[in-house]
């Protein structure tokens, strides 16, 4: 198992960097080219969500991403330290209730629609979003 960890300040400009790193490692791990756009978008959504949550609750805390090559899967975990305030994804679409500043539920809906496997779970400090895609080869351990 090879792991890459990345921590970054809760600034929107860093989300693009996180996307680029995740896409590069996904490619090297053997994720199919046709899935790389999905990896890029899903990781970007998870990081955007974390950045917005940290800016609202704990702007000084860094956000952590863990990228793993794990038994034929490329797995990404985005961890935040902010209280969870997600809306339910099952809510019907109502234009009048949607905010144009940030649509948390839409972010999660996009992640769920793109990642091959997604888990969202609360931790002692905040929320972890773990997602994974099939990968054909591993990153060399050394």
């Amino acid at each position, binding site marked *: 198992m090879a792991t890459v960890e990345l921590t970054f300040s809760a600034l*929107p*400009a860093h*989300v*693009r960097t996180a*996307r680029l790193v995740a896409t590069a490692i996904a490619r090297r791990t053997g994720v199919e080219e046709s899935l790389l*756009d999905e990896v*890029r*978008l899903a990781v*970007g*959504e998870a990081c*955007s969500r974390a*950045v*917005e949550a940290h800016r609202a609750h704990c702007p000084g805390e860094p956000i952590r991403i863990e990228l793993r090559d794990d038994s034929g899967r490329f797995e990404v975990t985005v961890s935040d330290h902010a209280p969870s305030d997600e809306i339910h994804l099952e809510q019907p*679409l109502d*234009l*009048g209730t*949607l*905010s*144009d*500043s*940030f*649509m948390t539920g*839409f*972010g999660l*809906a*996009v992640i769920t*629609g*793109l990642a091959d496997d997604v888990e969202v779970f609360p931790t002692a400090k905040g929320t972890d979003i773990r997602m994974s895609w099939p990968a054909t080869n591993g990153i060399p351990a050394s």
Partner: protein
Amino acid sequence: MDLKLDHHNEDRLTIVEVEGEIDVYTAPRLRELLIDLVNKGNFHLLVNMEKVDFLDSTGLGVLVGGLKRVRAHDGSLELVCTQERILKIFRITGLTKVFGIYASVDEAKEAHGKDK
């Protein structure tokens, strides 16, 4: 790639040209442009997304916000987009039912003209 924005008027339609990435970092610039256009009386907007490389939910939120603003003036906000990776995001979120999405600026202009 950063975000490039431009706009021009054709008849009663304001065409907004968007190029690059619309994400949590760049979306505020698009939001400001849409607000500015509406504040200046442009209530029929057509956002050309053919050169958009990346769009996330923050960008979707800005487009929804723009739509709400123009609708408050009986206006419209429609999109030009044929890129599958961008259309997929609209489908996942159900927003294909909210926005008019056209294959070209000409097609959108023709449809817009028929609505008059």
